[in-house]
């Protein structure tokens, strides 16, 4: 008779807290909660805009609340985390072959960061025009 009795380990529900790599993955996925919130704030802004000047100004005033500023600071930190992780993974979906060699990841990543800086500065300038 076989003595085999394979033991199956259950995956703990908090598996993503048991390993720093998984925790970072979950923070990456969790960043989407705050980015969702930010999109909703903007959507609300569009709604208030459609209601006229007084409504829009009230929306703007609400953004001045310290609570709002703290919320946006957290959202900014997580959005930047998304950016960093996104850029580090982006080259994986790109297989660019130049003269028989695959373009090294670090060039693609550097290109993304370069564009990021340019786009950000461009936005800051255009808004103050």
């Amino acid at each position, binding site marked *: 008779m076989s003595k085999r009795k394979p033991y199956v380990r259950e*995956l703990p*529900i908090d598996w*993503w807290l048991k390993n720093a790599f998984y925790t970072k993955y*979950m923070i990456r*996925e*969790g960043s*989407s*909660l705050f*980015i*969702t919130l*930010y*999109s*909703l*704030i*903007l*959507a609300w*802004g*569009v*709604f208030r*805009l*459609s209601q006229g*000047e007084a409504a*829009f*100004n009230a929306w*703007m005033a609400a*953004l*001045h*609340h310290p609570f*709002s*500023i703290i*919320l*946006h*600071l957290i*959202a*900014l930190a997580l*959005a*930047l985390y*998304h*950016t960093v992780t*996104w*850029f580090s993974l982006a080259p994986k979906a790109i297989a660019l072959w130049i003269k028989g060699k695959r373009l090294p990841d670090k060039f693609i990543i550097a290109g*993304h960061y370069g*564009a*990021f800086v340019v*786009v*950000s500065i461009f*936005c*800051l300038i255009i*808004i*103050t025009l």
Partner: protein
Amino acid sequence: MSNTTEKTYTRSHEPIFWGLFGAGGMLTAFLTPVMILITGILIPLGLIDSKHLSYEKVHLFATSWYGAAIVLVLVALPLWHTLHRIYHALHDLGIKRGRDLQQVFCYGFAFAVSIFVFTLLLQMF
């Protein structure tokens, strides 16, 4: 146990959502930080004068056809990214019940907000 008969394979519709997820993720990676910085931090702190985001200016922009398109994309597209992630994160957290419902709710939410913003912009035109 060699199976000589060909298995049946079911194609997933994930490519549609993955495409939107990717586009939204790209947009979010490049633009969301600076957008948050401007609307949520620099203007409220007075480091950028709020006249740059005054009602007239924003209204003028949002009622031009290209401005409306930009606003729609900036507000709605990130949601297709984030709700996709949230849908999959629910699975990661071990919430196995009602995956279909979760899917309808997540993507439905992104869809609803997109339509909401789209309608508002159309109305203002």
